[in-house]
């Protein structure tokens, strides 16, 4: 059994296993800490900076990202100090200046008492939480999309802003995005992600368009099973 650790969060004593992050420990204890770039399935990233908390350990006080910082015995965590709230307010105002309309952003802004951003708004949609890129890299294992540029020119990109050669159109990036930035639609047997078209496979039995051909080719490659195996949809395969 993993070693257990005792810490306090906002005065409340909480136990957690060694190797847990402060955010995980808080969530397990039903203590809310806002976050946007964190995802259970992905390695902690620490880019949005909403989840900052103030910790005190062996006499030192500082602010850390709770999604990354691992608990230690005797750690004292405060989730709502003035310094913490100022960081959160700044972050949400900055994110509102990139995306002033999405409910996810607005909800967090409301929670923080931020009615509007004082910064000039330039709608970009994407909040650069990185979940799409990280999902493609860590979960799907293909790194079909990545980041491009640095600083304020940073954006998510298919290489050369052109058709991503490694993409299998699984749609994971679309699904995982907290602000629904990546558009995906299906029409006439074609799945279109952003502006890239991926022909869908039609089930040899029932005729339904059920998965992008590229995705099935990928499954065939990694399982070693012949492509024909994947030309019928899952339901038809069962019967």
């Amino acid at each position: 059994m993993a070693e257990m650790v005792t810490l306090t969060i906002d005065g409340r004593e909480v136990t957690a296993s060694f190797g847990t992050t402060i955010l995980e420990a808080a969530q397990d204890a039903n203590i809310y800490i806002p976050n946007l770039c964190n995802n259970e399935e992905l390695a902690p990233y620490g880019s949005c900076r909403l989840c900052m908390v103030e910790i005190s350990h062996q006499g030192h006080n500082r602010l850390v990202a709770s999604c990354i910082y691992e608990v230690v015995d005797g750690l004292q965590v405060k989730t709502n100090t003035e310094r913490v709230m100022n960081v959160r307010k700044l972050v949400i105002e900055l994110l509102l200046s990139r995306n002033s309309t999405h409910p996810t952003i607005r909800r967090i802004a409301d929670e923080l008492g931020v009615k509007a951003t004082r910064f000039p708004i330039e709608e970009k949609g994407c909040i650069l939480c990185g979940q799409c890129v990280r999902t493609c890299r860590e979960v799907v294992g293909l790194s079909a999309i990545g980041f491009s540029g640095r600083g304020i020119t940073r954006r998510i990109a298919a290489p050369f802003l052109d058709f991503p050669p490694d993409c299998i159109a699984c749609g994971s990036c679309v699904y995982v995005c907290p602000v629904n930035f990546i558009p995906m639609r299906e029409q006439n047997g074609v799945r279109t992600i952003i502006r890239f078209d991926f022909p869908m496979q039609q089930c040899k039995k029932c005729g339904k368009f059920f998965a992008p051909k590229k995705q099935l080719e990928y499954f065939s490659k990694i399982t070693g099973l012949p492509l024909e195996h994947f030309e019928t949809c899952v339901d038809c395969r069962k019967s």
Partner: protein
Amino acid sequence: MMNKIKSPDELLKLQEKIRASRDPNKPCITICAGTGCLAYGTQKLIDNFKAEIEKRNLTGTVGVRTSGCHGFCERGPLVVVNPKGIFYQRVKIDDASEIIEKTVLNGELIDRLLYTDAQTGAKVTYEHEVPFYKKQMRLVFGMNGQIDPKSLEDYLAIGGYSALAKVLRGMQPEAVIQEVIKANLRGRGGGGFPTGWKWDATRKANDNPKYVICNADEGDPGAYMDRSLLEGNPHAVLEGMIIGAYAIGSSVGYIYVRNEYPLAVTNITIAIEKARELGIIGKNILGTGFNFDIKINRGGGAFVCGESSALFASIEGRAGEPRAKYVHATDRGLYDKPTNLNNVETWANVPLIINKGADWYQSIGTKNSKGTKIFSLVGKINNTGLVEVPMGITLREIVFEIGGGIPKGRKFKAVQTGGPSGGCIPEKFLDMPVDFDELSKIGSMMGSGGMIVMDDRNCMVDVANYFLKFLEEESCGKCTPCREGILQMRKILDRITQGQGKEEDLDMLEWMGQAIIDGSLCALGGTAPSPVLSTIRYFREEYEAHIKDKRCPAGVCKALISYSIDAEACTGCGVCARICPTKAATGEKKQVHTIDQGKCIKCGACFESCKFDAIKVA
């Protein structure tokens, strides 16, 4: 040429042999060939000296040595005639034959090439008497003048690698670490972290392999100490790294050099090759069984890669994005292995500490900042160059006694230290001792050693804006506070410099600044607000003039100034009219000229070229 050295004692014997084979009285012309002097065209001067010596059949009797930077960059090209140490400055390319004829062969001085003391008007003959050098303590940097960086023999001749021999002859790794801890050497890259403790933590980390890295990314604009050390004395850095690797238990090292330093890369590459040939680095070092070798990685042009975790990412072949440092690099750094990263100057201090002992090192400096620090003294200063001074010297001594004060009789306004992570220090702190903790107390920091002097014609709001623009471009973009926050702070500064500042701007900048410091992922964002916050703290009136009065007192911010011609001073020479890109400056020959404000784009070309001081900025 030379065979591999098989023991520490053999190394000491080789030093002896080289020293014995050299005649200390042999005339030798040392020419500074650092990047700065090369930019003055020194290569042609070097070629001329060599050609002259050959022409006069003096090859073998008179030596020519090209050395690394001597530090007095303002006065380059620099030539020192040894053995006496006669110091010639602002040497012209055609002076080679005269120097050989008069000084080398006939012992005569060439007055026009000697340094003139600004106070007394007297000529100074010897390098060590030049006021610029007198107050310095050139323990590390001084070696540059005595060696050709491409020559391993030169380094051995001045006792180089003695520290390594001492360590490998009989010191246990832990003892080496204890000596460095005792000396209290603190990181010279900016962090000021106790080096010995870093080595200790890496040694004690429970994983392998362990890496030793030299951070030669030197990104602070205006700072070029590390470049000059790496160019001028690469072996000192190597020696420090080999000793460190031995103490820590590492066999793989990296030197991460900025892409913009080609000569440094060349010289360190040659140094490693020669050291390897001799058995000083590589397998079975000095026959002791200790293995350690070094790879050189070039940066790709990113200031953020001076940050340790971004540097590791770059070496790993990725974009230079930092990661949170809750787990120290000494436990999990490069490739997630225990890594000890130190700055170039830090490494170069190590042989000194081993050779002369921690007690000696402790005798220099202040209570918590020991040893010397090399600063690049640049900007509005008479004696631009690299200076090495003991910790605890005052800013006034550096700026006025070593630096020679402000050019053109202008008034000192501020000195910026710590690069984009540091702050601007006003006149009232000139008598402050320079050390790690004192600088932090007043809102700046030591940083890597850049010291940028500003006068009354520099606008502090413009300076703050400049640093924000710099950081905006250099931010990796991963975290929100830095990527978006710096941009928005910059936009506010833009408005202020354009005369569109608002009452609430200063409060907003201070609020944002603190939140960005607290919320950023790494030290780039974490220190980005410092220039703004320190200038608001010490030059608030200047900001208020911009915001309330729409005025730039220093005469810099274009939207708030205008150029005009002083009718009394104008001679009608027409230079301004000829250089004006928009034909705003016009006039008849020998008649007073005028500037059409409607056409003037405030490029400053006329101001720069008027020889009669007739262009006024207000």
